[in-house]
C-alpha cells in the first residue's frame, strides 16, 4: 500500500524546465517514478528527459492523466501554480519551494483542504515510497523497501536517518517530508493517522524540530489513536530562544516550541526518543 504516493502515482512537475526541474526529473525517473508531464508557461511542446512539457496544468492533466504534482517553481509564483493544479483536478501536491510568503501558504492550505487535495510541504524534500514512487528531491540511494513509515520536518537530517535505517536493514514503506515552514499542508497528526491505517507500515519514525507545537499535538494523538510503535528524534535541544535556526519554522518563540517540551510529551505518550540521529535503528531493534 504505502501512503500518499505509490504505483498509481502519475507525476506532473511544475517548473520542469528549470535547473532543479531537469535534474530531479531524471532522478525521479531513475527511481522508477511515473513522471508523465511537466509544465512551464511558455515552454509547451518541449521535452525534458523524454517527458512532454505543457503550458498549462489543465492541458497536461487532460493529455497525460497526471494525478500528482511536484511544485518546483519560484516562491512568488507558487500560489498561482498550486491553485492552478488544484483547479485542474490534481489530487496530491508536493511543494518543494521554500520562502513562499506565509499569507500565501495559509490560504493555499485551506483551499487544498476545501478541494480535498492532499498537499505536502511547502519547503519540504517530498514523499518517497521505495519500490513504488518518489515525488521529491531526496537522494535515491538512501531508500530501501520495508515497513518503517518516516515523517519528518527536516531535510538532510531525514536523509541521514533514512540512510542509517536502510543500512541497519530497516526499509521504509513511505518517507514523508512535512516541510520546515510554520504552516504546512500535512502535520505529524495527519501522517500518523495515514501510517496507522497503512497495512504495510509496522513502525513509525518521527523526525521533529524545535518550533511550533506539531510534535506535542502528535504526542497527544499517539496516546489515543496509534497502536504501532513510534520512534522519534528532535533536533534543536541546544538552540537558543528567539533565533531562527535556518528554517522559518525552527524558532523557539515566546517560550514555546522547545525540544524539551516536545521530547517530554513524546516520552509520556510512550514514544522512544533518540539522542543521536543514528540511534533510531538501535531503538527499533530494542523495541520491536
Amino acid at each position, binding site marked *: 500500500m504505502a501512503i500518499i504516493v505509490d504505483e498509481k502515482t502519475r507525476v506532473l512537475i511544475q517548473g520542469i524546465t528549470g535547473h532543479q526541474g531537469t535534474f530531479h526529473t531524471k532522478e525521479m525517473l531513475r527511481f522508477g517514478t511515473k513522471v508523465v508531464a511537466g509544465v512551464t508557461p511558455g515552454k509547451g511542446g518541449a521535452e525534458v528527459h523524454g517527458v512532454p512539457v505543457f503550458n498549462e496544468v489543465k492541458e497536461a492533466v487532460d493529455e497525460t492523466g497526471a494525478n500528482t504534482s511536484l511544485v518546483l517553481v519560484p516562491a512568488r509564483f507558487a500560489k498561482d501554480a498550486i491553485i492552478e493544479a488544484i483547479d485542474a483536478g490534481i489530487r496530491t501536491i508536493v511543494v518543494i519551494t521554500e520562502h513562499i510568503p506565509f499569507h500565501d501558504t*495559509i490560504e493555499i492550505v485551506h483551499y487544498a483542504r*476545501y478541494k480535498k487535495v492532499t498537499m505536502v510541504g511547502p519547503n519540504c524534500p517530498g514523499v518517497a515510497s521505495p519500490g513504488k514512487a518518489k515525488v521529491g*528531491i*531526496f537522494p535515491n540511494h538512501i531508500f530501501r523497501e520495508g515497513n518503517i513509515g518516516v515523517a519528518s520536518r527536516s*531535510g538532510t*537530517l531525514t536523509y541521514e536517518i533514512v540512510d542509517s535505517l536502510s543500512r541497519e536493514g530497516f526499509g521504509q514503506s513511505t518517507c514523508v517530508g512535512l516541510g520546515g515552514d510554520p504552516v504546512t499542508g500535512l502535520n505529524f497528526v495527519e501522517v500518523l493517522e495515514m501510517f496507522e491505517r497503512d497495512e504495510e507500515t509496522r513502525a513509525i519514525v518521527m523526525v521533529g524540530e524545535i518550533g511550533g507545537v506539531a510534535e506535542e499535538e502528535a504526542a497527544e494523538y499517539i496516546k489515543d489513536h496509534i497502536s504501532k510503535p513510534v520512534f522519534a528524534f528532535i533536533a534543536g535541544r541546544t538552540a*537558543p530562544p528567539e533565533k*531562527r535556526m535556518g528554517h522559518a519554522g525552527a524558532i523557539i518563540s515566546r517560550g514555546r516550541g522547545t525540544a524539551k517540551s516536545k521530547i517530554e510529551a513524546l516520552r509520556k505518550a510512550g514514544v522512544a526518543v533518540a539522542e543521536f540521529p543514528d540511534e533510531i535503528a538501535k531503538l527499533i531493534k530494542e523495541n520491536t
Partner: protein
Amino acid sequence: MKLLEYQGKHLFERYGIPIPRGRVVDSEEEIKDIPLPCVIKAQVTVGGRGKAGLIKEARSEEEARRVATDLLGKRLKDIPVRKLLVEEKVEIDKEIYLSFSIDTSKRAYLLMANSLGGVDIESIPDEKIVKEWINPLIGLQPFNVRRVVERLNVAQRKEIYDIISGMYRIFKDYDCELVEINPLALTREGKLIALDSKIIVNDDALFRHPDLVEEDEGIDPIEREAKQKGIAFVRLDGNIGVIANGAGLTMATLDALKNYGGDAGVFLDLGGTDDVEKVKQAFQLMKKAKPKVILLNLFGGITKCDTVAKGVELVISEEGIECPIVARIKGVNEEEAREILKNAGIEAVENLHEAARLATEFAKR
C-alpha cells in the same frame, strides 16, 4: 522584518489608528517645538527597552535634549541607539493589549486582546486573554471583533472596533506575522491611543512591499553579510563553528556537541548548493566569527561532498584557515571528498559522535 516603533506608528496613522503626537529625531539638535511634557523612546527592535532605561520622560526642551544626548550614546543587547521617538506624554487610565498573529497549529489568524495591557502578554495567564480565530479564506468578520470588544469592557466600543479593523488591514495588506499594540491607552479624557507598535513583516513577502525600508540597526555585520549571501548564519554563545547542510542536520550537530560538553559559537547552514563558490563564502564568513575549531558535518545529496571539500581546499590554499577543522563526511561522493580534504591536511571522521568529541577537545585546548 521587524519594524521600528515609529515605522509601525506611521502605518497606524495611515490606517486610522490614533497615535500620540510626536516625531522621530536622530540627534539632540532636532529637538525643537516638541510636545511637553514628553516621552523619549529609543528606537530599537530588541525587547526590554523600558527595563534597560531607554524610555525616559522630560518636562522641558532642555531636559529633553539632555535625555536625548544620553540615550543616543547607549546600546541594547549590542544594538546602538540611533533614533529616538519624541512624543507627548499621555495620562493613562487603563491599558489594553491587542494583537493579530498566526496560530500555526490551527492554521488560522489569531486575534488576541486583554484589558491588562502594558505588560508582556506572556506574563498574563492564558484564561485572561481573549482569543478569536479567523479563517484565512473568509477573513475577519464583524462578529469576531464584537466578541473581543464585548470582553474588553470599555465604553469606547466603536473606537476599539475601528482600531481592530485597522490592525487587521495592516496585517493582511503588509503580509505581517505580527501586528501588536501594547499598550493601547485609554486616556483620562476617554480617548484611545496606541502608545507602542510592534509589527513583524514576513521576510518572504518583502518583495511585495517596496515601501518598507529596513532600518540599518547596526546589527552584527557578519549576520548581515550572511543574509545578503543567502546563507543561514546564527551567532551563538560558544566557541565551536558548526557548518552543516540543512537546518535540521546543523541543529542535530549542535545538540551532539553539547552531549560531549562542547558549545557552538556559530550555526551555519550551507543549505542545498552544489556551488564551490558558495562553500568558499560560507567558510570565509565562518573565519570572520573566529571560532576555536570548525566542525563540518556533511550529508551529501544535492550538495555533493566533493564540492564542499573543494571549497574548503580553495579557502585553505588561497588564504588559510587558522583554526583546526573536524570534518564528518557522508553521502554522495564521500570518498572523493575525503581524498581532497586529506590532501589539504584534514582527516575526515565518519561518525558524528567521534566528530563532536574531537571538536569539543580542540575547543577546550
